C-alpha cells in the first residue's frame, strides 16, 4: 500500500508539475504574443536601445556622427558639444579652459539643453538616465568631478531621446520612445510627475514654446500632442502620414512649424492666446524643393520681431545634389509668412547634421551647423535694416573644429 501511495503521490505531483509547466508556458506564450502584438502596433519597440536613440535623435545619422549633440547656452556665448566617446565639452567665447564632462552613466548622449535663467546647469539625456551637470562658470577646472552631476532616473523611462526645460527654468520634461508617459521633473527636489497618454506608444520629441504656455510632444506614431502648461491638458493631433520629425515655435509662441516623416512640406499651426487653438488649419507652406528626402530639422531663432528664419536640412544619400540648408525669412504678423532667402552649403562632401541658432546674437542671427565631417561652423547673418525683409549678408563663417584640431582654419560659406 505504501508503495502505491507513493506512486500515486508522485504521479499527482508530476501532474501538478506539468500543470504548472503548462500554465507557465501559456503565460510565456501569452506575454510573447502580447509583446509581438505590441511590437506590430508600435514597430519602434522592436528596436534596440541604441537604434532607438539613433532613430529619434535630432542629430542625423547619430550612430556614426562624430558629434552626438549640441546646445547653445540661452543667455551667454557658451555651448556644449557631446562627442562620440560620450564626453561633453563646453566652449566659451573667451579663451577660458574648456571643461570636459564625463560620468559613469553618461552613455549614448542624445540631447543636451542648458537650463534657462541659470548660469551653470546642463541637462543631458543619456541612455539610462538623465544627468544634470552643475558646471560652475567661475571654476578653472577642466574635469569637473562626477559629484557635480545629479542623476535622475525613473524605472521604465529610458532611453531618453528628448528633453525640454521650461523657459522659466523651473521644470524639466523628459521623454522616452518606450515610455508612454513623459516626466515632468522638479530637478532640485529630484521628484517627477508622470503625465501619461497611452496613444502613440511613446514620446520622441519635445519642444517648449518660447513663452512657456505650450509644449509639443511628438510620438513615434502618426500623432502628436500639444500640451498647455497651465493645467497640463493636451490636444491630440493625428498627422497625415508619418510621425512628426521636428518642430519649431515662432518667437511669440503663436505659431508652430512641423515637419513630418516622409513628407516635403512644412506644416504650420497657429494658436491664438487664451482660447487655445482656434485657427486650426494646417496648410503646406513651402512649395519648392531641391531635396529628395523628407525634411529633417527646423529651427527658429528665438527673437526678432517681424522677421525670423526657418531652416531646413535635407539628407540626400545616393543623390548627386549636395545637402544644403535652406533659409527662409518668416514674418508672423499680420499672417504667418515664409519667404525663401537662400541656401547654406558646406564643404564638398560634408552634410549638415544638426543646426541651431544662437539664442541671442546681437547683430542679427547666427546659425551654428554641425557637419558630417565633425566640424562646427557658425554662419552669421547681418541685417541691414532690422524689421524689414531686406538684405542679410552672410559674410563669413568661423569654423571651430572640435574633433580634429589639426585642420583649424577659417573658410567662407557660399550662398547660392
Amino acid at each position, binding site marked *: 500500500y505504501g508503495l502505491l501511495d507513493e506512486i500515486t503521490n508522485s504521479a499527482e505531483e508530476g501532474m501538478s508539475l506539468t500543470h504548472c509547466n503548462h500554465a507557465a508556458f501559456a503565460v510565456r506564450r501569452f506575454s510573447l504574443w502580447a509583446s509581438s502584438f505590441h511590437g506590430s502596433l508600435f514597430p519602434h519597440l522592436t528596436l534596440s536601445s541604441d537604434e532607438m536613440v539613433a532613430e529619434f535623435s535630432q542629430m542625423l545619422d547619430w550612430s556614426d556622427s562624430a558629434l552626438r549633440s549640441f546646445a547653445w547656452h540661452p*543667455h551667454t556665448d557658451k555651448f556644449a558639444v557631446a562627442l562620440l566617446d560620450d564626453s561633453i565639452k563646453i566652449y566659451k567665447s573667451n579663451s577660458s579652459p574648456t571643461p570636459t564632462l564625463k560620468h559613469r552613466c553618461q552613455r549614448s548622449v542624445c540631447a543636451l539643453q542648458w537650463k534657462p*535663467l*541659470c548660469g*551653470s546647469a546642463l541637462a543631458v539625456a543619456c541612455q539610462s538616465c538623465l544627468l544634470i551637470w552643475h558646471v560652475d562658470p567661475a571654476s578653472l577646472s577642466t574635469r569637473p568631478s562626477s559629484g557635480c552631476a545629479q542623476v535622475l532616473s525613473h524605472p521604465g523611462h529610458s532611453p531618453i531621446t528628448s528633453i525640454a526645460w521650461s523657459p522659466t527654468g523651473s521644470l524639466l520634461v523628459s521623454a522616452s520612445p518606450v515610455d508612454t508617459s513623459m516626466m*515632468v521633473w522638479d530637478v*532640485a527636489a*529630484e521628484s517627477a*510627475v*508622470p503625465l501619461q497618454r497611452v496613444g502613440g506608444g511613446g514620446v520622441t520629441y519635445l519642444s517648449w514654446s518660447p513663452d512657456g504656455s505650450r509644449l509639443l510632444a511628438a510620438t513615434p506614431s502618426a500623432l502628436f500632442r500639444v500640451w498647455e502648461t497651465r493645467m*497640463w491638458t493636451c490636444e491630440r493631433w493625428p498627422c497625415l502620414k508619418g510621425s512628426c520629425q521636428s518642430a519649431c515655435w515662432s518667437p511669440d509662441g503663436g505659431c508652430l512649424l512641423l515637419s513630418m516623416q516622409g513628407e516635403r512640406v512644412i506644416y504650420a499651426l497657429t494658436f491664438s492666446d487664451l482660447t487655445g487653438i482656434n485657427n486650426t488649419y494646417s496648410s503646406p507652406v513651402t512649395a519648392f524643393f531641391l531635396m529628395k528626402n523628407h525634411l529633417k530639422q527646423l529651427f527658429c531663432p528665438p527673437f526678432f520681431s517681424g522677421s525670423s528664419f526657418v531652416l531646413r536640412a535635407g539628407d540626400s544619400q545616393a543623390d548627386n545634389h549636395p545637402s544644403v540648408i535652406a533659409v527662409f525669412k518668416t514674418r508672423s504678423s499680420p499672417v504667418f509668412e515664409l519667404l525663401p532667402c537662400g541656401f547654406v552649403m558646406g564643404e564638398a562632401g560634408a552634410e549638415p547634421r544638426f543646426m541651431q541658432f544662437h539664442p541671442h546674437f546681437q547683430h542679427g542671427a547666427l546659425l551654428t551647423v554641425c557637419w558630417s565631417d565633425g566640424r562646427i561652423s557658425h554662419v552669421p547673418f547681418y541685417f541691414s535694416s532690422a524689421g524689414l525683409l531686406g538684405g542679410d549678408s552672410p559674410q563669413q563663417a568661423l569654423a571651430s573644429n572640435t574633433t580634429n584640431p589639426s585642420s583649424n582654419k577659417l573658410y567662407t560659406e557660399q550662398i547660392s
Partner: protein
Amino acid sequence: MIKMFSLKQNCWFIRKVVIWRAVASIAWSVLLLPVTSAVFVLLSRFSLFHPIQWISECTSLLTASSTIFSLVVLCGVVLITGLFNLEFYTLVPSIPCSRMALLGTVLHPRQCVHSLVYCTMGMLVMWCASVTIGGRYSTLGIPCKQSESGEVVTCLNEYHLFLLLAGAFMGYSHSFLGVVKNMYYVSFQPIQQYKYPRFKGCLPMVVKCSVIQSLYSARNFAALYFFFGYVPKTWISSTLHLQIDSSLQPLDSLTGLLDFSLLYHLSISGTFLYFTWYLTVLLFRIYVTEAYSFPVQSTFTEDAEQCLPKVLAETNTLVMKFLALQDLALLSQHSLSRRLEVFSLSQPGGHPHNWNAISRECMSLLSELTQRLLAHQDAVASNGRVKSQSASIDTRSASSSSSVVSGTEDVSETPRLSVPLRTPGSVFTSSVGGMHSALTAPFTPDVDSPFSSPAIRRLVGQQEPRSPWFGTVQSPHIMRRGPKLWSASTESQSNGSPPASPATVPSPPAANQKPSFLAQWLQNRREQVKSFLAKRVLIVYLFNKLPEASSQALFADSQAHIWALQGLSHLVAASFSEDQFGVVQTTLPSILSCLVVLLEAVDRHFKLPHASSKPVRTVCSMGDSTYKTLRFALRAALKTAIYKITTTFGEHLNAVNISTEHRKRLQQFLEFKE
C-alpha cells in the same frame, strides 16, 4: 479635539473651503469603496481552474447581506480615516532632530489615541475581510469534536483570530509609520493638474505602495505571531471559554504558518486594508492642494478679507496662506488680467495698495527666513566659541552635527524652535489652531532638563531682547548690515544686549563675564554628569543628533518661500512691460537687496556640514519625502528668481539704487557667472 475644531472654524477659509474639500474627498473615498471591495472579493475567491464557478460565487457574494453590512462598516472606517486626515494633516512637516524626539512623538498621548483608533479600525476591516473570504476564516468560534468524549463544543477558530490580530498589527504599523514617514504631510505638486488626471496618475503608485506595505507587514506579523502568538490565543480562549482544537495544526508553528493560502489571504486582505486608507489620504491630498483663486481686489468692502493682499498677511490659517502664495505664483506667471489688478492704483487716492501689501508680505516672509538662517549659523558658530572660552570639559566640536556627545537639544536647533517666541507673526505660530504647537512640543528643548547646555539657556533666555531682528525688518539698510553684524564676535553681541532675566538664566549669561564660584562649580558638575551619560551607548544612540535633520527643519516650510520668490520675481519681471504707473520701481531696490541677502545666507548655510548632502531616496512609500529636498529647491528657486529679474532689466539695473556689494553680486548674475 473639539477645541481645535472650534478654533479652526473661526477662519472663513476653513469654514467655506477646506471643510468642503475634505467632505468631497471623503465622499469620493466612500463611493470608491464598493469598487475596491468588489476587486477584493474577486481576488480573495480566485481560483484558476474553475472560472465559471468563481465568477458566479463572487456575484452571489457581492449581493449578499453580509457583504452589504461589511460595506457599511467599511464606510464607517473610511469616514473616521477621513476625519483623522482632516485633523492631523500638516503643511509643515515635523522633523524630529534626534531619536529621542522621535520616541517622544510616538509616545505622545495624541499619537497613542491615533494608534488605538487605527488598531481598532484595522481589526474591523480585517473582520469584514474574513467574513467576505468566508470558509475557514468566517467566525471566531467553530464547532468541533473533543477527541476523548466525542461531544461537540465551540472551539476557537485560530484563522479568524490570526486575521484580526493582523489587522490590529497593520493598523498600528500604519499609525507608527505615519509618524516616522510624515504620512500627514501634504506637499504641493510642481505642476497644476485637474483632479481626475492627477488621481489617475497617482493610482498605480498607491496600488504599488499598498501591495509592498502589505507584504512587509504580513512578513513582520507572521514572525511576531510565530513567537508571541500563544499569548493572545490563550487569553482569548480563556476569556471567551473557547476550547482549543487540538486536532488542528496550531498557527504559531512553522508548519502552520507555511500555509500558502493563509499567507495569500493575509497579504490580499492587508493590501485591501492599506489601499482603503491610502486612497483616502490620496484623495484628501488632491483636494486640499487644489489651487484656489483668490480675488486680487474686491468692489465690496465686506469681501475685503477674502482678497489676496489680506489673505497673504493672515497668519493663523496656514493652509490659506499656502494656497494664497500658490495663487500668487500662478497669477504672476499665467494671468495678465490679474497682474494688471496687482499693479493698479486705488481709485480714490491713487495708492498702489495691492502691490504694496503683496510685496511687503513676500519680503517679510523672505527676510524671516534670512533671520532664521543667520540665527542658525550664528548658533553653530557661537556654540564653538562659547565652548572654547568657558572652562567646560565638553568635547563637543564646533561642527555640532559631527559631535557624538551632548543631548538632544543641540544648540543649533534652538533658533528654529525659538522662532515662535521672537516673531509672533511668523509661519510657525500660524499652525492650524494650536495643534502644531502641541506637535512640536516634544521637540522643544526642555530648558530645565539636566541635558541642556548653558549655551542653550543663554540663547533661549536672551533671544527676545537681544535680537536685532525682532519683528519684521523693513529697512534694507539694516538688512544689509546683517551679515557683518552676525559674523562679528560674541563680545560685540553680548555687549549690545541688555542682561537677561536671572530667573531663566541661572548660568553665566555671557562668556566673557567672570562667573561666580558657585555657578562655576554647578556648571562643572553638570558637565561631568553629561560626559558620564554621554559615554553610555544607549543614551548616545537616543540623543545623538540625526544628520541633516536641523537643516531640513530650517527649511521645513520653504514651499511658501519658493512661491513667494516665484511670485515676486515674475511680477517684477512682468512689471517691466505691464506696470503702467511704475509702482514696482519704488520697491525694486528693497526686493533686490532682500533677495541678495537671502542668497548670501543660503550660500553660507550650504557650507555647513551635512547641509548639502543629499537624502536617500525612498523607493516606494505613501509618506511624502519632498520636504527633505526643499532646501535645494529653495536655492534653485532663489537663483532663478534673481536671474529672472536681472535678465529682464539688464543694464537698467545700474540705475537702481542699491549698495555696492549687492551691485557686485548682481553683476555676477548679469554675466551669468552664478
